[in-house]
């Protein structure tokens, strides 16, 4: 490795930077005396950091610009970005250190943390967070990043799930939908409503291409559709677990009798009930072509922008037996091979702090990762956001914790697409489980 040695002596420019950081810290300290007493970012060198993130266009760019501003304010250096398409993120992380110095910090899909830990790609940051910090995180934020007692990095945000819909539409049919988790409906109850609304709207619009539900499948892997088999089993059942406790086996879990029921439902909503389009385009709800849209809070703002005319409402996600949603998002992780370990760790600490996370969570129009931050914001106490928050606290679980999550997710997507296309569910699930096991075995 031809990486230049660590700067033992700060040069003049670093000194200047440190000075300005000190000024900034002093300024902040002036506002908050407690902060001035113990600067949590002491030791920050202000080195430029390189981040590996996925390319989310202007959306991510704007957010990261705000992060940069705040990071500079606490004395951090410039942030450089290495951007890859979302679908290529896992490969980019795994091959980041091949061919020379990799980026200092990864923004990775959170369930991959365990994989990257197994492959020795990331450095724990447990020492950056106090016990209070960890307890302040939502449970899934902490659980998702905690392996063998070490914490590897906070998420960017939290992600509840709910069904978006236009209240005018349900009013037209005089249907009263559940508003809170306590009143949540099962799929059977929903199906009746879905069918009724779809039939009525098709007739009214004279358009056979209007659908009841966009379940948000395709390209998003386990996040949305993985809850179908999981919710078919009781809490703690094999179907609910999806993989064995050691994370190395899916046979008997993913293809258990209960799970098959959930998988069958995926097929049925497309074929037997025909209430969901097979299209993989995300735009159908935005463009008034489906009645219900299963999504995360992130969609709130764009939908409001695209459909200012509708009375946007949310309802709890349907379930079969056990209500469940997947949470967890992207996690900030420190590259184990970074030459700027100190600053990189501090950056991750910063991103897990209320000030750092606030920028990102707001940028994402999503709940933040700390309970305390939710408590501070009144908009989280009213609908629609309140439902997302509730789903996080009451229903949420991290995605299945397996080494090789990416492999699992790839095969899941394939299984899901095959099921949607109308293949034999049991045969497909058996084959998928067998193949997933073969891949997971490599991590044993």
């Amino acid at each position, binding site marked *: 490795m031809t990486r230049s040695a660590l700067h033992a002596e700060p040069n003049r420019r670093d000194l200047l930077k440190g000075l300005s950081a000190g000024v900034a810290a002093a300024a902040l300290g002036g506002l908050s005396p407690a902060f001035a007493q113990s600067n949590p970012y002491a030791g920050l060198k202000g080195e430029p950091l390189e981040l590996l993130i996925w390319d989310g266009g202007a959306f991510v760019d704007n957010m990261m610009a705000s992060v940069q501003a705040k990071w500079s304010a606490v004395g951090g250096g410039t942030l450089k970005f290495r951007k890859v398409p979302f679908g290529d993120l896992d490969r980019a992380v795994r091959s980041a250190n091949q061919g020379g110095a990799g980026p200092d910090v990864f923004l990775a899909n959170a369930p991959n943390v365990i994989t990257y830990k197994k492959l020795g790609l990331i450095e724990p940051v447990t020492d950056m967070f106090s016990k209070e910090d960890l307890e302040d995180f939502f449970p899934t934020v902490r659980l998702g990043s905690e392996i063998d007692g070490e914490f590897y990095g906070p998420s960017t945000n939290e992600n509840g799930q709910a069904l978006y819909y236009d209240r005018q539409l349900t009013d037209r049919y005089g249907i009263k939908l559940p508003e809170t988790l306590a009143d949540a409906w099962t799929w059977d109850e929903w199906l009746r409503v879905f069918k009724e609304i779809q039939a009525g709207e098709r007739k009214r619009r004279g358009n056979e291409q209007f659908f009841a539900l966009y379940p948000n499948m395709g390209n998003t892997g386990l996040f949305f559709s993985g809850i179908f088999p999981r919710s078919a089993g009781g809490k703690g059942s094999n179907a609910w677990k999806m993989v064995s406790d050691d994370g190395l086996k899916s046979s008997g879990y993913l293809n258990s009798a209960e799970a098959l029921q959930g998988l069958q439902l995926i097929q049925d909503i497309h074929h037997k009930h025909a209430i969901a389009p097979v299209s993989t385009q995300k735009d159908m709800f935005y463009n008034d072509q489906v009645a219900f849209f299963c999504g995360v809070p992130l969609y709130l703002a764009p939908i409001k922008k695209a459909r200012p005319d509708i009375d946007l409402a949310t309802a709890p996600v349907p379930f079969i037996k056990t209500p469940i949603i997947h949470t967890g998002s992207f996690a900030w992780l420190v590259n184990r091979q970074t030459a700027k370990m100190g600053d990189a760790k501090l950056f991750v600490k910063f991103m897990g702090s209320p000030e750092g996370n606030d920028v990102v969570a707001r940028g994402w129009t999503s709940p933040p990762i700390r309970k305390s931050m939710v408590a501070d914001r009144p908009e989280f106490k009213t609908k629609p956001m309140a439902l997302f928050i509730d789903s996080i606290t009451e229903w949420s679980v991290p995605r299945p914790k397996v080494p090789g999550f990416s492999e699992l997710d*790839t095969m899941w997507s394939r299984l899901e697409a*095959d099921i949607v296309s*109308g293949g034999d569910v049991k045969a497909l699930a058996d084959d998928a489980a067998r193949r997933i096991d073969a891949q997971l075995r490599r991590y044993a």
Partner: protein
Amino acid sequence: MPHPTAASGRDISRRNRSAAFLEGWGPALVFLCPALVMLCLFKLWPIAEAIHTSTGTFDPGGQRIDTAGFDNFGFALSDSRFQWGLWLSLAAAIVKVPVQLALGLAAALMLRANTGGNALVRAMVISPMFFGLPVTTFVFAYLFDANVGAINAILSGIGLPRVAWLSTEAPAQLLVLGLSVWRDVGVTMLVFLAGLSAIPPQIAAAARLDGAGPLALFFTITLPLLARSFQFAVVLATLASFQILVPVLMLTKGGPTGATDLASFQIYETAFSYFDLGTASSMSLLLLVGLIVVIALELRWLAVKWTYE
């Protein structure tokens, strides 16, 4: 320049001065150098690397952890999915090659005259080539969407049922192959155009005097004389059909239920989604061998035994 004429002195000097002649490796090497260096570095080395990789076991981070001998080959060959993928790749060639050749030949025959209008149509036939694969694939994804795509709008508009292009087996196969043929017909046409222009006009004239009608002329003179172009076009089309990847990657991901699970896609997935480099490399080499066998067979069937004088 005066030179000693003694035989011994001359022999030595000749060896030294042989650079003056077009003989021997010395002077050729100067000109071959760039190509040779590239050939070795970026064609042969990767093959060697692939062979080396194929004999190893790798952890999911891409680190070699063990030697596997021929286990990876055995594993790949005994995997029903890969067997199916190889068969699909072969089937893709079996369908694509004749269709593409027929279309390319028809286009070449239609557009062989050198008029301005023909030049324009020729340019249009070639145009998919330079619109780039990612973009064209994305355009196709937009056109062929089951619910909001223009193609289904047309179908339903003229009273035909909508087709779930990407989630029904035969239509998905049709789409992937169709996209590939659509893109590559231009190349085939160019090959045939060149072949047609190489046929001396006297031969056709002679055949016409010998009593050949337009059909007889085509089947007894034009087609046989295009044999070399045929060979070249078949090889190119076969290569292309074994390399169909981006459409599968962007549109179908091998599905639905394995209908487009081509060997090339499996190799990509094994290497870049599962990071099973050993297996992926052995799969690559197996596909390469398969490709060479297929092309060798084709060249044997299409052997050309005549030449123009």
